[in-house]
């Protein structure tokens, strides 16, 4: 388990969040404590667990496409503006 020195700042950037210097310092400290606690998981023998166990356990529906015009219209209709059956959002820049 690798916890880099600037982990909080890096992860915040990856998550498109901006931290204050105080938040960075607070999270660096709290991350150290939390991941030291989580480290106990590394000592558990999981050799009997296949990597796909979680996927097998998921309830998956058949992969068949469904067209629902009424739902599509209802979803687009939720927004205040649309064009060509596409939702129009605020101009970002």
């Amino acid at each position, binding site marked *: 388990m690798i916890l880099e020195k600037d*982990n909080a700042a890096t992860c915040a950037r990856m*998550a*498109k*969040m901006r931290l204050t210097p105080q938040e960075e310092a607070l999270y660096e400290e709290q991350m150290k404590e939390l991941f030291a606690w989580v480290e106990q998981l590394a000592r*558990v023998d999981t050799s009997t667990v296949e990597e796909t166990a979680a996927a097998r356990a998921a*309830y998956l529906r058949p992969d068949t496409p469904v067209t629902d015009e009424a739902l599509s219209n209802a979803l687009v209709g939720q927004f205040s503006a649309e064009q060509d059956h596409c939702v129009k959002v605020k101009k970002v820049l």
Partner: protein
Amino acid sequence: MIKTVFDIADAVRSGTLSAREAVLESLGKIKELNPQINAFVEVWPEEALKRAEEIDARRAKGEPLGPLAGVPVGIKDNILYKGHKATCCSKMLENYVAPYNSTVVEKLLAADAVIVGRTNMDEFAMGSSNQTSVYGPAHNPVDFDRVPGGSSGGSAAAVASGMVPAALGTDTGGSVRQPAAFCGIVGVKPGYGRISRYGVVAFSSGADQVGVLTGDVKSAARMLEVLCGRDTNDSTSLEEPVPAFSQQFTSDIQGLKVGMPKGFLDDLDEEIKEKILAAADKLKSMGAQLVDVDVPHAKYSAPCYYIITSAEASSNLARFDGIRYGYNDKNAKDLNEQYELDRAPFGLEVKKRIIIGSTALRAENYKACYLQAVKVRELIKRDFEEAFKKVDVILTPTSPTTAFTLGAHKDNPMAVYLADLYTCQGNIGGLAGISVPCGNDKQGLPVGLQFYGPILQEEKILNAAYHFEKAL
């Protein structure tokens, strides 16, 4: 005074009580107590009364009414109710109005319940004390200086104070059961997939589950009957039919096998340990058999929970970028800055969980951290599956402590995380869990007892809890 879901619904259906009277009583209690308790962040009195009057008019015409007729209900602020705000108690969504009904709201309305308002919660359901809400903390009705628990603290406080006989919450790591324990009421989380998550703002999609808070077990059973069931809008919802939970209580619990997990009471507060052991003795005196079981990996539930749910949260909350909905800042100069400014309103705990999740999912950490947590979760599930081959239900405390004071643990978040030990096992294992009161500590604070049962066998935990509640 009529208080329970069962009492109100049956009285309204039979005509001995009008829906309007039931709702007026609820609104009166809310007006009286909510300024001190802050259980509700918004109430809709005119709409609730109008709906109650419609229900009464239908009854007067001889039309059949639903199983929750006239019952005033609160819904947690992360459950969508069309045309009403759903803010997750976050500045991020402070003006967000739900464009559609969640499935659980549709079911409440179809059952003729009356939704009176949205309840307080920890921001985006991340927390165990209802202190991170943008609307201010909720207060425990038993002691106003204490937390009601979280994240569904508002719902728990609303029921415990008598404002409503039932409220919906969501439970990702104990957020229905723990506040139920702190406030001295009943809180149920059915097995994962039993209740549709469609229209419930996602925190951790593999662990989130809608739960109910009520004053008694029978009322919780009726609520579950209404809310459980397959939903094609939620592909993780289960196909299996829903039993009539409130009709399936046995006459006694002779022969019920109650699992006592090895080591579960170690390092526990002495007063709570005493109450749990007394409860076990009580069950034994009622004819139950106490059976030792071993769930050796369950002690890893809390670290597993924090890694897996934070990873899922970092993904789920990526949608809050202010473009389609949510807080949108007008001062950005480029796209990156737009995103950063739009996501600035997240509170400290939310940001932290996103960072935890992102850390666990970083390429260099993924295998050792996230993937390992998923594998350990599988081991925990297997432990419980093995245990349930020997017993019907498993008994644990709901929480290692009673309700703490507002502001406690402010500088010690790990203390709060460790408090989820007994409840998060249920979410990690996908189990059904119920918390019922089992007495008070020396300060008069409620202690919660928890029963776990396997998924798709909620009737077992309801039955055990029902008989324990009657005997207490």
